[in-house]
């Protein structure tokens, strides 16, 4: 019978990892476990949960920096920031609806371990862009810190950002310092109705290449969700002070006047629209395989066109076309043709977000790496976790 460790301090966590390293026994490392249905399953007798290590260490709103323990619930972080009219600019998603688990259970550690970013990633950057420092325990059981609490810092390698999408396979974080930003005073979404995916792609590209400072750009095909029942919807989000939004809205109207069917979603409705897309609500309530495709923004619609020739799919575009969510009919596996299509259209990568345990065990959930790159990844793993005790196999076999 395996153990379930639930430390409440960094020292306790260090002790557990030291023991596991000495025993050469693997640990499944989780925050609260809300993303367990995502990625590859870990074969281990023991589980290490970090959601007992909670609390704010330091928060000075005027410094725009929050230092928080890794197991702190994401919702606690968001609530605290909101009280000071600030937020996590990369707006992490709550994937519970699409993964079929309890809502709003994730930890800040889980968000950063998976580099989970929402629609505003397009303008504000990803989760990893906002990490300034971390404290962690390596797979050798060594507790260490990297980075700091200031925005500008090039003292040594950038381990804090570098560890951000390592899924707990290199080290277990105990705390993070994160850059936060003021919430926008206002937001609205400029909508174009009835565009083809190709038209939407060029409209989004033009909007992003203008000085309208669009913070999110997405496309929902006709029939995809209640919002797009009758027409396809191209969404361009504007945030900022009212006088600036009005001006930028006029700018968008003028740049995109060749698409006359225009609408506006304001205030709370705009926030809800982006919140639903961020949390992938239109894909909820299904167990069909759901893939996350990261491609050159203008290649998004080409990849979709190629996919539609071969498969029955349900899809939407975010990040101005650079992020494509694709739900596949049937179990597949679809990984090989899917990735070939990406390669043939400018490159990028695909990750399986939702899939049955059998599917996740049988396909490459993460983008396969060429041999030289895999060699480098394995050497990095071997340096930080020589006995392979931290989430072995969570991303790739051998890592």
């Amino acid at each position, binding site marked *: 019978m395996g153990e379930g*460790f639930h430390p409440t301090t960094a020292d*306790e966590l260090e002790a557990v990892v030291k023991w596991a390293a000495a025993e050469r026994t693997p640990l499944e490392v989780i925050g609260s476990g809300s993303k367990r249905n995502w990625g590859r399953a870990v074969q281990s007798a023991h589980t290490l949960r970090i959601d007992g290590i909670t609390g704010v260490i330091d928060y000075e709103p005027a410094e725009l920096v929050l230092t928080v323990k890794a197991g702190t619930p994401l919702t606690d972080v968001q609530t605290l920031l909101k009280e000071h009219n600030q937020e996590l600019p990369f707006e992490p998603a709550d994937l519970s609806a699409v993964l079929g688990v309890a809502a709003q259970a994730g930890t800040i550690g889980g968000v950063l371990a998976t580099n989970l970013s929402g629609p505003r990633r397009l303008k504000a950057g*990803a989760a990893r862009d906002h990490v300034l420092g971390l404290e962690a325990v390596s797979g050798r059981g060594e507790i260490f810190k990297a980075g700091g*609490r200031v*925005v500008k810092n090039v003292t040594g390698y950038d*381990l804090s950002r570098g560890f951000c999408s390592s899924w707990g396979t290199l080290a277990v974080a105990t705390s993070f310092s994160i850059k936060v930003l003021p919430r926008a005073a206002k937001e609205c979404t400029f909508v174009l109705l009835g565009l083809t995916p190709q038209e939407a792609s060029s409209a989004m590209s033009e909007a992003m290449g203008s000085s309208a400072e669009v913070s999110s750009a997405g496309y929902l095909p006709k029939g995809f969700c209640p919002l797009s029942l009758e027409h396809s919807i191209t969404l361009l989000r504007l945030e900022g002070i009212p006088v600036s939004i009005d001006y930028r809205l006029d700018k968008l109207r003028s740049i995109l006047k060749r698409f006359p069917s225009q609408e506006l979603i304001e205030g709370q409705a705009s926030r809800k629209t982006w919140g639903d897309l961020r949390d992938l609500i239109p894909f909820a309530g299904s167990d069909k395989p759901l893939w996350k495709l990261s491609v050159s923004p203008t290649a998004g619609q080409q990849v979709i066109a190629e996919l539609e020739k071969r498969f029955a799919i349900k899809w939407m575009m975010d990040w101005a076309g650079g992020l494509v969510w694709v739900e596949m009919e049937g179990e597949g596996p679809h990984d090989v043709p899917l990735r070939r299509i990406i390669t043939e259209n400018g*490159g990028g990568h695909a990750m399986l977000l939702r899939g049955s345990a059998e599917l996740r065990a049988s396909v490459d959930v993460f983008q396969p790496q060429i041999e030289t790159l895999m060699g*480098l990844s394995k050497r*990095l793993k071997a*340096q930080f976790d020589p006995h392979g005790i931290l989430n072995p196999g969570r991303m790739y076999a051998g890592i």
Partner: protein
Amino acid sequence: MAAIAMPKPSQETLKKRSKIVADLQKIVRGEGVICDEVEMRPYETDALTAYRQLPLVVVLPETVDQVSRVLKYCYDNDVKVVPRGAGTSLSGGALPLEDGVLLSMMKFNRILEIDLENRAVVTQPGVTNLGITTAVQQDGFYYAPDPSSQIACSIGGNIAENSGGVHSLKYGLTTNNLLGLEIVLITGEVIRLGGKHLDSEAYDLLALLTGSEGLLAVVTEVTVRVLQKPETARAALIGFPTSETAGKCVAEIIGAGIIPGGMELMDKLAIDAAEDFVHAGYPLDVDALMIVELDGPEAEVDDLLKRVSAIAEKNGSSYLRVSQSEEERNTFWAGRKAAFPAVGRISPDYLCMDGTIPRAALPQVLQEMQELSEKHGLRVANVFHAGDGNLHPLILYDANIPGELAAAEAFGADILRLCVKVGGVLTGEHGVGIEKRDLMPEMYSEDDLKQQQRVKCAFDEKQLLNPGKMFPVLHRCAELGFMHVHQGQLPFPDIPRF
């Protein structure tokens, strides 16, 4: 030569020099291999000119294949390699080694692709930072990170140092604007990372490579994000009777939720030197001068300027001028951008420091820095990127007076210790190099530094790439593998289980 010790040269490599040169000439033919002492002279130092060393040989490859073969040759023959871009490092990152090949990447000087639909530029690493902006500006785009040396520094060097600039508060550092890299490992293996898409698959090696100071790999291709230029940019010149009130004003502007495009501070000595040099029209009856630049749509800029002015007034500002034209805005900046050479005119030599502190600590740090100035008997002029807490104290000294360089270095080290003490870091944008190498233990414990070296060992186990930089002690990778093992049977009864 000043005091920082470099790794002992390998006598074996020095003995084999003529063979190494001949072998490298077979890989890079013609003028791409420089071994004549006079011709190597321009490569003996970077922008940290107190340190000089002639390299074993200089190699200027032109193709990725040549880079790969040179590195593999060095790997096979245990020869050290120091990569070099434009040589503008302020921390000695490109200081040659007596027994090391200096690998100059400046023949990689072409922009490969401009893809404005995806707002991406693919370029070779020897292109200058400003060269990228120049290539896209006719379409209204620019590359955001803008280090002061942008006219000369290469984008490859920017990757190595994770360069920032005056606009990094709003637009981020190199790491936030980088999409993809092609790198060559010391083994000669060529690896591509990222591309025009967002976010890396698997481990975020882009993050580890950015700011790695040439210790992990040699960059042969770079893909960066370019942005549309803001429609309007206006700057305000705000004077304060004391540095403390200026520092408080900075914190309040940020606290009010305003993120200016740039926010700079200069102290009295820097203001006087700059005004005397470029006649920017700076007020001379203030103790601290702030330049705040707001950018975006005109209506937004006007609104924010009003709010910034009100906050400044509340904090006791004694001077306020808002730029009324692009020409005037550029004049405001001219003084700031010339601050380093301006200080160079009032002192035979100066040492430029680069710590970052939490903004709230600014008044305390300025006060203690004055005390340190008296203690060491040297003047200090202060120029900072106030918005992100990045200080550039310029320590004035005269290298011809025996002992003054050592005193200046001791003063600089004390300033950096002060930065760490208040919760800051040793270097905000200039890098560790050799300059701050021996101060690393002030900020990091031995275990912290070990983790950094483990990254090095994953990329370059033989430690042939740029050794002697960044790490105060060079552990062999095998030594780092040692682990304290204490056997036990679940000996932690107190740890909660679930």
